[in-house]
């Protein structure tokens, strides 16, 4: 096990920046955002980011294809960009989000080359959580504050720094930096003590929730739980496991570009057909689909894995404070 002193972090990030594009959480006003590290940028490693680092692997807007249109001819250019990258300071919930993306975007029969290129080029360094917020419920959905799944290197906060453990060859490669020194016995036992204290009990048993969801499909529960929703995209855009996107063309001087952009199933136009027909015309249907996707449909396709990492951002960022845990509580006891 290695130890990383807090004061050695800027030096480490500086050296990493010579080989990688390094993303860190930074505080701006009262929000914590993911931004590329530059000399002088102070990473806010003690906070869960207001947004997750999902835009690093799944950009808000990216160019998929460039079309050169001259006279009657059309040339197509694939634009896949994947420089070596380090995400430094994610949380276990953020890393878990990428695992959920992997099942979809790295499907062997049909991989997304853009995501795959970026994923392969990215190393994820996660800070484990010793003091979750009130809105955190990662242990309820299969994760946990000390969950290591999905990270390449994990950092456990100790006095004066972090205990560092590599989980993959990518993580190992980072440990070669001089900032990582051997951890002392005292630090190892401190780590043990802190791990014991950091256990988080699940809020509720989500066993059987896919079945409860299916049973509740036509009930008025959905109209009730969604009535305060205002159908914006805040929960979706800040969710580490949401990956819905839109594809649109835009004209350029050379011809056109095909863009992939974030989209949200909460928006009215998400399923609006050109004929005017909309299979999900009201918020009740859209919210039901959101919960259904996360807790029934996705699990049924991927061995029971929930498409939710329990980070609580949807609760905090919702303009009307809709709490997904309340909906789950109702669902779990539906029909009883």
């Amino acid at each position, binding site marked *: 096990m290695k130890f990383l002193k807090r004061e050695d972090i800027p030096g480490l990030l500086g050296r990493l920046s010579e080989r990688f594009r390094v993303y860190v959480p930074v505080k701006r006003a009262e929000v914590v955002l993911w931004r590329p590290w530059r000399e002088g940028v102070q990473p806010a490693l003690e906070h869960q980011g207001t947004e997750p680092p999902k835009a690093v692997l799944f950009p808000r807007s990216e160019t*998929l*294809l460039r*079309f050169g*249109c001259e006279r*009657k*001819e*059309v040339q*197509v250019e*694939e634009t896949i960009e994947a420089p070596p990258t380090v995400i430094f300071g994610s949380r276990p919930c953020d890393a878990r989000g990428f695992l959920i993306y992997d099942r*979809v*975007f790295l499907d062997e029969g*049909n*991989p*997304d*080359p853009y995501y795959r290129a970026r994923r392969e080029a990215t190393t994820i360094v996660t800070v484990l959580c010793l003091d979750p917020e009130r809105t955190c419920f990662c242990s309820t959905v299969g994760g946990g504050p000390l969950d290591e799944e999905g990270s390449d290197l994990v950092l456990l906060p100790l006095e004066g720094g972090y205990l560092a453990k590599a989980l993959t060859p990518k993580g190992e490669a980072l440990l070669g930096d001089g900032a990582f020194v051997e951890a002392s016995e005292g630090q190892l036992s401190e780590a043990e003590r802190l791990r014991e204290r950091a256990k988080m009990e699940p809020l509720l048993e989500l066993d059987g929730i896919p079945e409860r969801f*299916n049973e509740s*499909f*036509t009930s008025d529960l959905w109209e009730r739980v969604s009535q305060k929703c205002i159908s914006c995209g805040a929960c979706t855009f800040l969710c580490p496991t949401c*990956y*819905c*996107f*839109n*594809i*649109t*063309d*835009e*004209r350029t001087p050379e*011809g*056109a570009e*095909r863009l*992939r952009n974030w*989209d949200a*199933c909460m928006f009215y136009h*998400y*399923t*609006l*057909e*050109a*004929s005017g*027909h909309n*299979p*999900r015309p009201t918020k009740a*249907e859209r919210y039901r*689909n959101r919960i*259904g*996707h996360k807790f*029934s*449909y*996705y699990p*049924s*396709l991927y061995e029971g894995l929930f498409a939710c990492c329990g980070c609580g951002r949807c609760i905090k960022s919702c303009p009307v404070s809709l709490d997904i845990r309340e909906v789950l509580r109702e669902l779990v006891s539906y029909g009883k």
Partner: protein
Amino acid sequence: MASRNPFLPYIATLKEVIEETPTIKTFRVVIDDPAEREAFRFEPGQVAQLSVFGVGEATFVINSPPTRTEYLQFSVMRVGEVTTKLHELQPGDKIGVRGPLGNWFPYEDMKGKDILFIGGGIGMAPLRTLLLFMLDNRSDYGHITLLYGARSPQDLCYKEELKEWERREDLELVLTVDREFPDWEGRVGLVPNVLKELAPSPEGKVAITCGPPIMIRFTLQALAELGFGDDQVVTTLERRMKCGVGLCGRCNIGPRYVCKDGPVFTLRQLKELPPEL
């Protein structure tokens, strides 16, 4: 072997445009690159995304059967942004073709059975693919009936082919329009009602239907009343689609994606999904 970028379209040239109705045009396109053209293999019922570069993509069934590959045919109804621009294209213009996407009609399971096609309006497009495919493999199938209706005589698609099909001995054609029209001497009535009048027996039959959502709903009802089992009824659905490969999340009905696990579904499969049509 690296798989092809699922977002990358083939560049194709529009060879011919046929005006079917005031709102529907049929496009015949040929993929430019000979190797790509050769490698483009598809099954009846599969769809493709057509690109108008700089405007966008929209999904259409590959309207020609895999047994006739001099061109790929698509029938397009003008309803929105992309289809309006498609309708402005002229032969010689470039178009993108991304596909084949989705699943196809389970024609293997239909071999030896009598086939009942029930189509409404532009819903005839996917049915034409399978019908021509079956006619090109005629001995594999039993008696074939096509019940096709539209709002008015001018809204019927493939008018020239309909005349051909009427003359064929190995195909029974029943045409209908929603109400009386001056030059129309054929049947009058909504497709589900005409279906009930014809009262076909479900014995040894498979029914394949496509059309506007409301027509499908009443047709499925009529088929149930006539005693057709859930495994005997096949339909093909429409949804707003973007990626076409089950990634963007939008076209789902429950855990199934209409672009990837569909658009063809048997009634049994539909009933296993949440009621979200």
